[in-house]
C-alpha cells in the first residue's frame, strides 16, 4: 500500500477530529503516509456536520470539508468506552510510528493512552497532541473551534474597516495555519528519532502556532509600542491597493500597484494618463494620503467592466490584478486547472466527489489523493486483517463484544 509515496514508511494512528488536526495529517497522507484514523461509532465528527454538503444534501458522508481533510486515510470506527477496544488500539499503537490526538487534555489519559502510557508500550513512541490552547494553562480545557482561537489570538480584530466593528476573519482561521505546523512537527520528530532513537511528546497549541502569522504585528507592538489596527484593504506600503466593484451582482476586482511604473501603467490602462501627473497621486506618499479619492476614481472605471476583463487588461500591462473569485470562478480558473487543484475521486457512498489537491508539487515524488475520505468504519476489516493480522474468528468476537459500535 502506498509504496510509491515519499512517506510510505510513516505510520500514524490518528485520533484527531474536526478540522485543524485532520487537515495536518491529510498533508502527510498526500505523500503516502499510512494513516489509520479512529472515529467513534456514536459521537459524530463535527466536521461531518459542516458545509459544504455535496448537492446540498446532508449525510454523514456528504461534507466537502470532512472529505477534504481526510482524503487518503484509512478509517476505523471503534467504541473507545468498550473494554475490549483497548486491545485493538494497543496493537495499533505498536504498529504506528506516531499517535496523534486533538481532544481536550483529559480524554487520552482517561483511556490510558497518554504519552507516559504509550511509552511503556512503545519506548520510542512519538505522540502529538493538538488543541486550541495547549495541554497546560488556565484555558487548557476550553471547548471550541478555530474561530474562537482566531479571536483570542488577535486575528479577528485585525480584519475589517477602521470606521466599524471588526468583521473578523472568515471561519476557523487558526485551523488553516496549525495543520502545516502539525505536519512539520511530526516529520521533525521522526527525523529526531531516526538520528537519536528517541521518541517524544509534542504539545501543540493551535493558537500558539498561528501567532507566527501575526509576528509583524507583535513586533510592531513590542518595538514601536503601537497597537496594530485594521485598515480595510489599504496597505502601509502600497497605493493603489484595493478591491473595486465590477459589472454584475457582488462582483469585484482586486488591484495593487507595487511601484511608480505600475501606477503609470494603470493610469494608461484606464485611459487617464493625466492622473500620473496629478500632484494628489504623483508619489506613493501622496497616493496613500489621498487614498479615498484614488479608490473612487479607480472604482468608477472598474464598475462597468467585467472583473476578468480588468484582470486580463491590467496583467497584460504588468499590473497586479485578479477577479475576486468565488468557488465557481476558482473551479473554472485556468491556473487552478493547470495545477489540477480540483481532484475528482471515487467515493463509497457519494459515487464521485471532489477534493483539493496536495499543495506542493514535488518533481520526483508528487503527492496524490490515494483514496476518498472514509465513510464511518469503512476500513475496519482491512485494518484488522491486513495491518493487525487478526483472523476472522477474532474479528467477529470483537464485533460481538460491541467494539465497533
Amino acid at each position, binding site marked *: 500500500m502506498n509504496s510509491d509515496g515519499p512517506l510510505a514508511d510513516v505510520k500514524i494512528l490518528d485520533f484527531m477530529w474536526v478540522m485543524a488536526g485532520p487537515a495536518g495529517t491529510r498533508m502527510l497522507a498526500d505523500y503516502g503516509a499510512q494513516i489509520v484514523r479512529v472515529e467513534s461509532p456514536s459521537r459524530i465528527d463535527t466536521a461531518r456536520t459542516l458545509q459544504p454538503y455535496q448537492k446540498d444534501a446532508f449525510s454523514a458522508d456528504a461534507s466537502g470539508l470532512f472529505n477534504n481533510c481526510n482524503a487518503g486515510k484509512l478509517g476505523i470506527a471503534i467504541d473507545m468506552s468498550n473494554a475490549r477496544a483497548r486491545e485493538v488500539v494497543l496493537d495499533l499503537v505498536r504498529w504506528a510510528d506516531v499517535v496523534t490526538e486533538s481532544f481536550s487534555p483529559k480524554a487520552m489519559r482517561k483511556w490510558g493512552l497518554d504519552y507516559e502510557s504509550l511509552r511503556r508500550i512503545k519506548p520510542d513512541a512519538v505522540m502529538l497532541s493538538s488543541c486550541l490552547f495547549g495541554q497546560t494553562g488556565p484555558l487548557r480545557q476550553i471547548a471550541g473551534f478555530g474561530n474562537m482561537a482566531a479571536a483570542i489570538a488577535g486575528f479577528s480584530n485585525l*480584519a475589517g474597516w477602521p470606521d466599524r466593528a471588526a468583521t473578523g*476573519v472568515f*471561519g476557523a482561521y487558526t485551523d488553516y495555519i496549525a495543520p502545516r505546523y502539525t505536519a512539520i512537527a511530526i516529520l521533525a520528530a521522526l527525523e529526531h528519532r531516526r538520528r537519536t532513537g528517541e521518541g517524544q511528546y509534542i504539545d501543540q*497549541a493551535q493558537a500558539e502556532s498561528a501567532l507566527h502569522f501575526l*509576528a*509583524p504585528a507583535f513586533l510592531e507592538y513590542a518595538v514601536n509600542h503601537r497597537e496594530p489596527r485594521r485598515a480595510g484593504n489599504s496597505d502601509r*506600503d502600497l497605493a493603489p491597493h484595493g478591491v473595486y466593484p465590477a459589472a454584475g451582482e457582488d462582483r469585484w476586482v482586486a488591484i495593487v500597484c507595487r511601484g511608480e511604473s505600475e501606477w503609470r501603467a494603470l493610469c494608461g490602462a484606464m485611459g487617464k494618463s493625466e492622473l500620473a501627473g496629478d500632484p494628489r497621486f504623483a508619489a506613493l506618499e501622496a497616493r496613500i494620503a489621498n487614498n479615498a479619492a484614488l479608490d473612487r476614481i479607480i472604482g468608477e472605471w472598474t464598475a462597468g467592466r467585467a472583473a476578468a476583463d480588468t484582470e486580463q487588461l491590467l496583467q497584460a500591462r504588468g499590473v497586479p490584478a485578479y477577479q*475576486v473569485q468565488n468557488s465557481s470562478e476558482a473551479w473554472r480558473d*485556468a491556473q487552478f486547472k493547470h495545477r489540477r487543484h480540483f481532484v475528482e475521486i471515487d467515493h463509497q457512498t457519494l459515487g464521485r466527489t471532489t477534493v483539493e489537491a496536495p499543495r506542493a*508539487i514535488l518533481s520526483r515524488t508528487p503527492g496524490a489523493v490515494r483514496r476518498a475520505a472514509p465513510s464511518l468504519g469503512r476500513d475496519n476489516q482491512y485494518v484488522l486483517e491486513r495491518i493487525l493480522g487478526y483472523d476472522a474468528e477474532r474479528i467477529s468476537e470483537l464485533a460481538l463484544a460491541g467494539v465497533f459500535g
Partner: protein
Amino acid sequence: MPILESSRVLDLSNERGLLCGQILADLGADVIAVEPPGGCSARRLGPFAGGVRDPERSLLWWAYSRNKRSITLDIEHAQGRGLLRRMAAAADFLIESFEPGYMTSHGVGYDELAAINPALVYVSITGFGQSGPKADYADADLILLAAGGPLILGGDDDRPPVRLSVPQAYLHAGADAAVAAMVAHHERVRRGRGQHADIAAFASAAIATQSAILAAPLGATQLRRLAGGLKLGPLNLPVIWPAKDGYISMTFLFGSALGVFTRRLMHYLCARGYCDEATRDKDWIGYADLLMSGREPLSEFERVKEVVRGFTRAHTKAELLDLALQHGFLMTPVSTIGEVVASDQLASREYWRRIQDPVSEREYTVPGPFVKFSASPIQYRRRPPKIGEHNREIYIGEFGLSNEEFSRLARAGVI
C-alpha cells in the same frame, strides 16, 4: 541536539518565502540568508522600528529571519553565480522565491544545481507556480487572496470583500513550503536524492476558504460574506457578538455536533431569565433545517439572536470567557494584540521569547516556539542578522575563500 542541526539551507527568498527558512532554522538547520548587495527586498517593507525606513529596521525582516545568518551575493554577477553553485554543491536545501524562470535564466535553476548536487532539495515559492497560463502574473497579497478564494468570503456585506490587515498569502505558502521541504528531506534520507518543490501562494491561500472553494464542484450553496459572520442562503449567521466592553467570537450553530452547545447555552439563558422555555426547547439540532424549510420563520431566528445578544451585551469579555470555561460554551474574546501579549494562558505556558534587536541590541518579545517538543525543544539561538553580517565568517571561515579572494569579490560588488 537540534533536529536539523547538520543541515545547511541557502535561503535566497524574499518576502514571499522568509517563513519557510525560519521554520527550518527553528528546527536547528544552519540557514544562510543569501541577500543581494544592499539587502533583501523584504527589508524595504514595513512596519519599521521607530518608523524609520531603513533596511536594518524592517520589522517584517525581523519577524521572519530569526535563527538565520546573512551573507550578500550578487546573482546578477557571473562570479556571484559561480559562488552560489559552489555553495549549493554542499547545501541540503535551497529556498528561492524569484519570478518563475529567473533562476534558470541565471544558470542556477533546479536542473543546473541538481547536476552538481543530486541530493539538493530545491524549494521554489511564487505567487502562481512555476508554469501555467498565469504563472507570470504580477502578484501581491491582496491579489493572491482574490485568486485563491478566501477574499470573497470576508467582510461586511455592504462593502467590498476585505482582507486581514496583516499580509497572509505568502505565510500560507511559506508554511506549505516548509512541509514540502520536510517531506522531500524524509524521502532523501531513504533514497539519497533531492527534488524540486513548486509552491504557489494562491493555491496555498485556498486553505483559508475552509473548503468553501469546493462548493461549485460539489453542487453546494456558496457562502456569502456578512459583517461579523457569514450568510448561508437566507440565513445570517453571526460569529462576532457584542460584549459590554468589546466583542466576542461565538459558535452559535446547529446540527448533531454543534447544536448540542447551542442547546446548552439556551438552557443557561432560560435559567437566567433571558428567554422563555419555548425558546429554550427549540430543536437546536435540526434548527437549520427548520429555518431552511420555512417551518421556523426567519424573523423568529432574528428574535432568538437578539435574546442571545441581550446576554452577551450584559457581560464583559472576561466574564464571558469565564462562563465559557465553567459551562463549556463556545465563546472567546476578540482580543487586541496588546491583550494577546497580556494573556494569562500564554504567560502560564511561558510562550513568549525575548530576542535581541539587531540595531540597538535591546530585547523585545516575540511569539515563541510553534510547538513544544519534549525531547528536542525549539531554541531561539540567533537574533535576525544585519545585511551580510556573516560574510567573513561564512565565506572565509567556512567556505574557504582566501582573504585576497574575498576582498577581490567584495571590491567587484559580488559580495
